[in-house]
């Protein structure tokens, strides 16, 4: 499909979800997870202020560098690893096709 990529999400029970993700809807990973009713709260609405969309990046795609806001939030979050990102800060773009992410514990 045009303007559609695949994002793979491993949920907290270890189950893998292969999601069709639109790149023309200005959506991010947090919103994508919510749209597929995966257990991501997105409490702050995408302002990098709650870390409820904390994910681990498991695949090799080149991702944009985290902003200061995202790094600041990750500083206050828990279960943070070197491959931690906030889903709300990862916009769905063609380059992310095939990206595999794991939901961090809450």
């Amino acid at each position, binding site marked *: 499909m045009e303007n559609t990529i695949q994002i793979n999400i491993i949920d907290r029970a270890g189950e893998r979800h292969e999601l069709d993700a639109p790149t023309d809807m200005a959506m991010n990973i947090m919103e994508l997870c919510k749209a597929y009713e995966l257990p991501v709260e997105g*409490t*702050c609405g995408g*302002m990098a202020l*709650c870390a409820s969309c904390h994910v681990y990046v498991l695949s090799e795609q080149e991702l944009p560098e985290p902003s200061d806001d995202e*790094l600041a939030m990750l*500083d*206050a979050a828990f279960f943070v690893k070197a491959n931690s990102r906030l889903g709300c800060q990862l916009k769905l773009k063609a380059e992310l096709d095939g990206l595999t992410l794991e939901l961090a514990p809450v």
Partner: protein
Amino acid sequence: MRTKIETDIIIIGAGPVGLFAVFEAGLLKMRCHLIDALPQPGGQLTEIYPKKPIYDIPGYPSVLAGELVQNLMQQIAPFNPGFTLGERAEHIEKQDDGRWRVTTTRGTEHLAPVIFIAGGLGSFEPRKPPIDNIEHFEDRGVEYFVRNPEDYKNSRVVIAGGGDSALDWTIYLAELADQITLIHRRTEFRGAPDSVEKVMELAESGKIKLITNAQVVGLQGNGKLNGVVIQHDTDGEFEVAADHFVPLFGLTPKLGPIADWGLTIDKSAIEVNTTDYATNVPGIYAIGDINTYPGKLKLILCGFHEATLACQSAFKVVFPDKKLSFKYTTVTGIEGMPG
């Protein structure tokens, strides 16, 4: 005996929607009193994103969240609302006279025939690190706030966090405590540059111990904390003796006691009808981000609308014998109320 606060509408939550409810209630001659767990009004807007611009408030192409709160405070000033700040609404109870009694964490009592719950995402509580037995040590050496700095005099304190509050308390307590250890998950700090510099100076001069690339993963002690287990990214696990562990990771909203008030709750939100935003309990309304109904949007502007309609309905509860007539502010202006 404490004095009870009596009013027409108790508003739980002093965020933008709770504040605007005071205005709409004031137009209908109903007095309001707001309760909020945070020490200042504005809710998330003040606590989390005061400097962020909001673009979807009608009539404002852009307004900073903090400014919007200031404007709302100015808009409701003529109606002299009361505030109970820094206290969380804990219990609600229906009295024999039909009024509700809302009691806070500090025991302050509020009486009114109507409650508006404008609690947003819930009340802001400290983010607790996921350490197995942390609850066991709460107030036995683990504190999420520094209430009284004197409590740390001559003791060994471990502070965790990388933001301003961790830096500021490290600097402050360095003078008082016997030994201060600051633990941060990364090498860089996000706080004010001055504070970061000061902490680095204290570490270099040996006044404090700074451990970066590490986190606290365990707590030790028999009934009272006497040490923390630290996991370092490269050096592995080791212990540090401590009388106090103060994790400072900011605040996160929790629904809290609202969940126990007998209201119908769906996914952490209170179900309301869209005629007047009443809950399943007569006299209790829920407005703003805390409520849910088909088509709900968590927007400030929707909350303003909900507050307005809830006030029209609350009028019939507050003044059962009075007739309600609809008026425009352009016609009647604003007639304030004494405090």
